[in-house]
């Protein structure tokens, strides 16, 4: 039997050796394809098996953590606690279990504590933070921060910033300009939350643009972080060479209604970048700066379409009624549909629906303009 199998293999090898090159290549590729297919099946099986095992283990561990937290921390009456951190100290002893001596177990514990910390405020939230420190989980986070892998660094930064554990500026600041987008974003978020003195210092150093996504996330962190010192954003609007930083600061100026930054915003009306100029006009309109109306109307004719639209919107938002005639002219005479629509919107913002001007416009306008007016006055149509 052995002899015949060897014979068979030998004959196959012989056939292969003297086969044309194309057949040799094809046979090799058949083996490669079969091997890769089998590897893919194995990988699917392994992923699914390990995934389901991991899910089960995490569920079990999370249940244990929940029980321990409810029993030792969350069910404690804050009024019976004499000193802050007392509850956490008692709870820490309950967490000295073999499950939390392994790295993955500690990671599950960190993730669960973070989850509670993000959802529980006040004294209970502080107890969870103390528990994190007492269990020396911050050491795990700092260890990850030193890792060479960016994803571990991101994880560490998220953990430390959520737990409000201070990290030296010299460690975080270089990361705020990292070439890796996720790491850069995490470092900026952490810096804002953790920096004691100048949480916005990285604005000075930002060489990489603040992407719209970064801006949305930063905006949330800045506007939701407690006890954050809000600086005058005019300094970056005036001096930053990073356009995305200026753009972001304009949005923050609007959010914080920072009137002291208005002179800096006004200077942007002369910038050559029309996108930035449009954002500055938008900012002025949203802050309802009536003094700027004359200037906006004065520069209107020299502006590109996006800036003209922003000027019309700003006049409507300010709503002083000082430039109604200008809006009327634009509505009646402009050849661009969008300009007429925005002029009409601003007019209907400043003039009540039954006013004399609206009535006159309805009578004298072209059918298309009448439709635009009706569109703008209809409460069912938002945009």
């Amino acid at each position, binding site marked *: 039997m052995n002899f015949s199998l060897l014979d068979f293999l030998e004959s196959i090898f012989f056939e292969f050796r003297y086969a044309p090159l194309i057949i040799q290549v*094809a046979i090799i590729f058949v083996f490669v*394809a079969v091997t890769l*297919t089998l590897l893919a099946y194995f990988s699917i099986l392994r992923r*699914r098996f390990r995934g389901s095992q991991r899910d089960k283990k995490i569920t079990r561990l999370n249940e244990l953590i929940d029980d321990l937290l409810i029993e030792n921390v969350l069910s404690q009456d804050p009024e019976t606690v004499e000193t802050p951190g007392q509850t956490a100290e008692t709870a820490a002893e309950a967490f000295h279990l073999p499950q939390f001596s392994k790295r993955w177990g500690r990671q599950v514990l960190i993730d669960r504590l973070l989850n509670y910390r993000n959802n529980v405020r006040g004294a209970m939230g502080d107890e969870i933070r103390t528990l994190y420190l007492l269990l020396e989980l911050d050491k795990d986070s700092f260890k990850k921060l030193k890792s060479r892998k960016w994803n571990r660094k991101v994880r560490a930064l998220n953990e430390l910033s959520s737990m409000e554990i201070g990290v030296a500026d010299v460690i975080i600041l270089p990361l705020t300009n990292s070439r890796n987008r*996720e790491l850069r974003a995490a470092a900026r978020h952490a810096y804002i939350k953790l920096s004691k003195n100048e949480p916005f210092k990285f604005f000075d150093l930002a060489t990489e643009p603040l992407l719209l*996504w970064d801006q949305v996330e930063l905006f949330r962190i800045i506007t939701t972080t407690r006890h954050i010192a809000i600086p005058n954003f005019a300094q970056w609007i005036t001096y930053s060479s990073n356009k995305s930083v200026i753009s972001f600061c304009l949005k923050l100026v609007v959010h914080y209604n920072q009137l002291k930054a208005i002179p800096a915003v006004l200077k942007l009306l002369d910038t050559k970048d029309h996108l930035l100029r449009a954002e500055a006009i938008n900012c002025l309109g949203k802050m309802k700066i009536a003094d700027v109306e004359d200037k906006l109307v004065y520069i209107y004719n020299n502006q590109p379409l996006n800036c003209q639209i922003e000027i019309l919107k700003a006049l409507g938002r300010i709503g002083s009624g000082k430039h109604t005639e200008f809006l009327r002219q634009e509505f009646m005479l402009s050849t661009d549909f969008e300009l007429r629509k925005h002029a009409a919107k601003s007019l209907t913002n400043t003039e009540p629906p039954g006013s004399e001007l609206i009535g006159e416009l309805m009578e004298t306008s072209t059918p298309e303009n009448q*439709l635009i007016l009706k569109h703008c006055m209809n409460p*069912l149509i938002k945009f």
Partner: protein
Amino acid sequence: MQRIWEIAGNFFETAVFIYGAVLLVSYAVLAICSLIAVRKWVMSEKYQGGDVLLTSPLAPGISVIAPAFNEGLTIIYNVRSLLTLKYVRYEIIVVNDGSTDNSMEQLIKEFSLVPVDFAYNAKIQTRPVKKIYKSTDPAYAKLTIIDKVNGKSKADAVNAGINAAAFDHFVCTDVDCVLDENTIIELIKPVMKEKKKRVIAIGATLRVANSNIFDQGVMVGVRPPKQLLPRFQEVEYIRAFVLGKMGWTLMNCVPNVSGGLGLFDKEITIRCGGYDHTSFGEDMELMTRMCRYAQDNKIPYAIRYIPQTLCWTEVPSTIKIFGRQRTRWARGLAQLMHTHFSMFLKPKYGRMGMIVFPYNFFFELLAPIIEFAGIVYYIVMVAMGHINWPTALVLLVFVYTYSIMITTLAILYDQITFRYYNSWRDVALLCLTPFLEFFLYHPLIVFFSLRGYYFFLTGKKAGWGNMQRRGFQVAPNR
């Protein structure tokens, strides 16, 4: 004479060999690129959730456009499903393209619609809009319904939606598609995360919903299709989206964003003239024109794909409807190649002209023709007794195993992205499908492609290309 045949035969064999080798190498390259792109996406998603877009005042506005033609069977559920989308600032525009059933009456009644004086600006020419409706119920304030004269194409209906859209980006979908509730969030992310380029279109994976379970338009259960034909299409979709499109994404060479779901830059779309209502492959045609416009105007652009399944759609479950759909797609491809052939191998059009277009020409358009010619040649050779059977068998096994490998890798990448199917049986069923695909499904694709090319050459007339729907499985009452 015999000598001429011999030379022609040798030439054909060599040409097919080179063609096949390049095709297989390009699949291998796509598989590698796709793996890199999928892993990159998975890592990025792990640390950046989209919840921030549910409340942020900085989130860009999005218009969701869904054209409908005679979808009375499911339209209410479909619109309700669209209304469950999660995002802070969006509107839904459903375009009723002159349906002859009771779709419009159902919509008016269900959503308390009233006609409004809407300033509709026809930046793209379409068939006339009859009326535009808004709901008096504040719960449906996001909803706008356009009732227009039938334009005999989906393109015309979408164009009307684009004209009415208020925001700078729009999501185009079919009203019968069921979208994941996070669709808008996931689609806008690549636009917001792009550093230097203008993202003109983003697509996501589409999946087959034939055996999924729905409750009031909301998907409550996911299963691979039970029937063989839809299951073949499921595997084909996974391969095309997760392996193909993700591979192309890494090279910024995405040839097409599917008509089932895509997010587009409205300004560029309008400047390109919108969807071409005479095209049979309007999605691919628009993409080509958008790229062309960007290249002509020196706009650095990007087209992205994400491997996450955001759209579930019902695919044909009978050969007749399937054939109609594939014939139409093939015809669209032929039409596109014919219309934009001036881009072929033109460095001026960058990757579109030098990579995407040649790839589509050689490996999408010509593939069925070459395959058919190969089969005919094979039969002739068999009849003449000129076949070296062991060699032929080895080559056949090679192509067969290679095709199974590529599809299995696609299924693996899909599993890396997300475990959509909970049961082992479901995954095993998917993994076994490629074994039959080669013999049962692929010949159908070749046949219907050739039919499409024939219709293109003969100029046969065609309509909206609507699929007869069976509707989805409904969850039992609880």
